[in-house]
């Protein structure tokens, strides 16, 4: 009973937040609504005992991705009237994309279990009694190890590409070279001069 009530509460919050993401006038409010949507869906995942997924969603999307999002949105000076201009014109296309997405969802749910890897193999890996996370890890690193490694390599490539595309070293910026600072010796900076402490001409 209580679980059902909690589910409907979080589901309602999720839908409300998702609507706000597209309808809010202020882009910062939109980004924050997206945060709320992520958080509510994480709560829904916790409810079906997928605690690893739920917490990972909060950790990755709420804790890191959306912070960077907000960061950028906060600094932009977005003209809202320009953004709203083509709303009616693009509406049919948007509705079409939405419908396709709903259809895809229905197909996935209707198809039941997607049979990518023989089921008994997965069951064998998950046979050891243990918690959700241990199970996930044991399947991920045995049955699905190659797709997993492939995904890791793709991500690494994406990181490197993103950095290479955006990082330009400007010549005119002041830059601290820590290695050079550490390498300096006393002789590089200091010259000892021997001279008499008094001169006759002064007196």
């Amino acid at each position, binding site marked *: 009973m209580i679980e059902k009530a909690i589910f409907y509460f979080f589901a309602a919050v999720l839908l409300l937040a998702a609507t706000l993401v597209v309808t809010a006038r202020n882009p*910062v409010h939109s980004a924050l609504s997206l945060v709320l949507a992520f958080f509510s869906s994480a709560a829904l995942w916790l409810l079906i005992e997928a605690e690893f997924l739920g917490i990972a969603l909060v950790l990755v999307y709420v804790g890191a991705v959306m912070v960077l999002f907000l960061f950028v949105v906060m600094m932009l000076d977005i003209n809202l009237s320009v953004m709203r201009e083509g709303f009616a014109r693009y509406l049919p296309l948007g509705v079409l994309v939405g419908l396709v997405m709903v259809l895809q969802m229905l197909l996935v749910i209707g198809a039941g279990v997607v049979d990518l890897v023989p089921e008994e193999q997965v069951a064998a890996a998950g046979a050891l009694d243990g918690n959700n996370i241990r199970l996930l890890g044991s399947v991920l690193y045995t049955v699905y190890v190659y797709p997993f490694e492939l995904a890791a390599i793709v991500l690494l490539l994406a990181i490197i590409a993103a950095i290479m595309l955006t990082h330009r070293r400007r010549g005119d910026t002041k830059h601290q070279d820590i290695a050079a600072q550490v390498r300096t010796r006393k002789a590089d900076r200091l010259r000892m001069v021997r001279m008499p402490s008094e001169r006759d001409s002064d007196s």
Partner: protein
Amino acid sequence: MNALIELSWITAKIVALIVPLFLAVAYMTYAERKVISSMQLRRGPNRVGWHGLLQPFADALKLLMKEVVLPQNANRFLFVLAPMLSIMPALAAWAVLPLADGLVIADVNAGLLYVLAMTSMGVYGIILAGWASNSKYALLGALRAGAQVVSYEIAMGFALVGVLMAAGSLNMGEIIQAQQGPIWNWFWLPLLPLFVVYWISGVAETNRLPFDVAEGESEIVAGFHVEYSGMAFAIFFLAEYANMILISGLAAILFLGGWYSPFEGLPLLGPLFDWVPGLVWFLLKVCLFLFLYIWFRGTFPRYRYDQIMRLGWKVLIPVTVVWLIVVAGLSLGEVGPWFS
């Protein structure tokens, strides 16, 4: 009916944790002022109560009675929401911290992940406070804080990955049980570089000196909370100190064996200290880290912003990556008392 009883029991447990936590926060401010003042050869607060012991309450009362000023062009909703967003995760993370054997609100399997997720949400309070105030200093502080916290979270996460590799569990209680034994059985020794990295990034995560560019009194006045006054300001303060105690508690649990005595299982000293409850050992370890916080504040000058970023990305993260590989080797070779 049963559900109702369970609910009230959980609420009672939460209250039993939060009230002492707030007291600890209050006396942390007092301890900080006392310790800093003695480092600077001053006396510190000594007027209110015996040796100034009632000073935190006097401060709280003063802040309660002050007006909460809403800046004219501020975004009202977010301006009020930001302090709540900063204190909520600081308190929520305490749910999974075991204070002694079995003394924990929620003994969940994904405890360590949960703590990481909660602490990573604290940055929203800071960013939103800075943006909603509609002030240049506040926005600068918010941007600095956002970049800093996101960067150091990575180093911190990697350090915690080392702990979970060594313990073989994400459950806080099991992590502590994996460190059973005297002081050299605890994880600080095999994971020493990760311990240091964790602690440095913990200090940076809480925006404390020497990493307090988000506030930077001498550069941007008070950074993200420059427009806040009264209780709203006090809540930011509460959140900062609650976070400090949280990071210290985590350090004690993950690297210093939580509730275990440093003489656990030794022939003569072990039985001698058996009467000390585990809670006392845990609190002593937390106090050690809290003192380190104050000590840092009293002795280190503030880092420059680009130096902070360099330290986080180019020093701490590579160190953790290297040591993760070493930990993997140690645990394959079942080295010492830690990995057998």
